[in-house]
């Protein structure tokens, strides 16, 4: 396959801004979001409901429709814009479902109830691959086998209502993989499933990612879900990315107070807590986003500047592992800025450095 080298990003989201014009005002759902996904990389996009993560995902497939509108920025797929320029519709038509594929939250309703699952997989193959009926059918059987569905030749003749939720999500994943996409966007793929099935589906996605060299964008509100699967995690809050870090670093030491809050409210197996901590307050109204940091009103560490000025994503250097932490190490870390393994971390918080020092001296 001809494409950029492995470490070049396949997808670049560049200062993306998306508005929804409603009768009661314009909602600024995505406010200046930038991130990249490299070939074969698994990125988690985490945020609560209304943070703009699903809207961002839809923009990657050119699926923002009125009343939604991309009002700024760009999404580039292997260098080609999916937002503007001549031939953008052609590009989207070519890419959507073939090079970038999507799996949705609700497997119970994402399949057309009145067609067999086989015909729905065949439909994609015939659309993008121009396969004949027979070849497409054979490939559909192959795909169901790939996602771990037993007896696939019989299954393709079944209707969605004859399958369980977990099974349907496997079918949807098979459908998404039909044309060997380079990027799989999974929008809350496990939210509607029960816990044991959740684990199976995540395991399946991780497995396929390794086997097929897929890049994956995993969108979720649950930091617990991305923990085992993702290389990198971007945390969204109120239409902005507040922190973007390698997964291990983020869990070891969240740099943004919101990330810390999220982690504090995620149930964990390794720490005994009497009760989960909730983040006080509610996200701001995105029709009138605050002039400063959107999290400031809920943030225990907020200072005056936070409410007045918009923090931008700045490079953040992670601390050495807890226990070895010392002032000296922190200074040392500053010298390692050029080390690529340590520089892939950004945070949008004025207090990130202060808080890091506080943690070190504590």
């Amino acid at each position: 396959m001809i494409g950029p080298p492995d470490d070049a990003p396949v997808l670049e989201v560049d200062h993306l801004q998306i508005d929804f014009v409603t009768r009661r005002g314009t909602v600024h759902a995505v406010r200046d979001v930038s991130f990249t996904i490299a070939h074969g990389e698994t990125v988690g996009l985490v945020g609560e409901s209304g943070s703009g993560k699903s809207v961002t995902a839809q923009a990657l497939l050119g699926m923002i429709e009125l009343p939604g509108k991309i009002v700024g920025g760009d999404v580039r797929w292997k260098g080609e814009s999916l937002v503007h320029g001549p031939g953008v519709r052609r590009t989207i038509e070519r890419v959507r479902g073939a090079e970038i594929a999507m799996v949705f939250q609700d497997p119970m309703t994402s399949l057309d109830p009145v067609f067999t699952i086989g015909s729905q997989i065949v439909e994609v193959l015939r659309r993008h691959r121009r396969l004949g009926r027979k070849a497409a059918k054979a490939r559909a059987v192959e795909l169901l086998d790939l996602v771990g569905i037993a007896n696939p030749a019989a299954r393709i003749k079944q209707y969605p209502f004859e399958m369980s939720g977990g099974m349907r999500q496997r079918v949807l994943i098979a459908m998404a993989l039909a044309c060997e996409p380079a990027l799989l966007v999974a929008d809350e793929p496990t939210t509607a499933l029960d816990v044991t099935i959740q684990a199976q589906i995540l395991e399946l996605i991780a497995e396929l990612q390794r086997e097929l060299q897929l890049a994956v964008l995993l969108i979720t509100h649950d930091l617990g879900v991305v923990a085992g699967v993702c290389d990198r995690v971007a945390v969204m809050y109120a239409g902005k990315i507040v922190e973007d870090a390698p997964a291990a670093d983020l869990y070891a030491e969240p740099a943004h107070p919101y990330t810390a809050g999220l982690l504090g409210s995620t149930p964990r197996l390794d720490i005994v807590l009497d009760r989960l901590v909730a983040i006080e307050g509610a996200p701001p109204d995105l029709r009138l986003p605050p002039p400063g940091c959107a999290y400031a009103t809920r943030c225990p560490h907020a200072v005056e500047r936070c409410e007045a000025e918009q923090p931008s994503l700045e490079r953040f250097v992670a601390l050495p592992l807890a226990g070895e932490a010392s002032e000296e190490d922190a200074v040392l870390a500053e010298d390692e800025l050029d080390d690529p393994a340590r520089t892939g971390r950004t945070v949008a918080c004025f207090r990130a450095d202060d808080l890091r020092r506080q943690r070190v001296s504590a």
Partner: protein
Amino acid sequence: MGRYLSQRLGQGIVVILGVTTLVFVVTRMIGDPVNFILPLSASEEQRAALRSDLGFDRSILSQFGSFLRDAVRLDFGNSTYFRNEDALDVVMRFLPKTLQLAAAGMVMALLLSVPLGAIAALRPGGLLDKFLVTLSLIGLATPQFFLGQVILLLTSVKFNLVQFGDGPWTHLIFPALTLALPAIGRLTMVTRSAMIDELNSQYVKAARAKGVAARRIVGVHALRNAAIPFVTLFGWEVIRALAGYTLVVEAVFDWPGLGDLAILAIRERDFFLIQTIVFIVAIMVVLINIAIDVAYKIVDPRVKL
């Protein structure tokens, strides 16, 4: 399926029995047919003789008993108006004209309402949608006797396009259109709202994400799902047309069908003919209801019969 069919046929027999009983009782309440059959100058003895001849002098229960006995053998007695011709033969002579009219009207309704409703649903609230909705509302709200006469005046009287009454197939167009227009209005609205629902559903979003062409999403996925509510309502329209609206339309256009015959039979107190017409219509209604269920099963694989 076999079990379902036998069950429905059993229910159908009960329905037909109920309807014929009801009509039997009602016809006995609308007046003495003998006065309509014999000339005014007939003597009281002649009237009594005819009455006993037709069995009207017996008790209503004994009349009903013999009616049922004969009905099982499809013997509904002779029409009094049509010079003692077998009532069932008379009905069968008029039935094809009504079937023709209803079929033509319903085909028109099907062919027009589905595309119009689907087009309106593409942009709900858009100009075309508003136009089609207004048109549908006018269509479904205008009474057929009025609509029919306006069409009749325009086509046959003013512009002399076709004659009314029986004739070559061109005579069928305008009565069928009159029969169809209110149905088109209703069915367009049904198709429109069903399509709006389907086009907003998650599977349509998922299909778009797969890259399926818009034409295919609308014309295959959404339309097939929208067909589920449509089938039921279309079946009702067919029933309404056969068992009601043809009466009005046939009267306006002087169309020699079952509706025309029914009005005649009521006017002439032709009890046996009325009973036969109702019996035949009841059978058709039962059969159409079964056909709706079967069509339902074909459209929606989740339906178990």
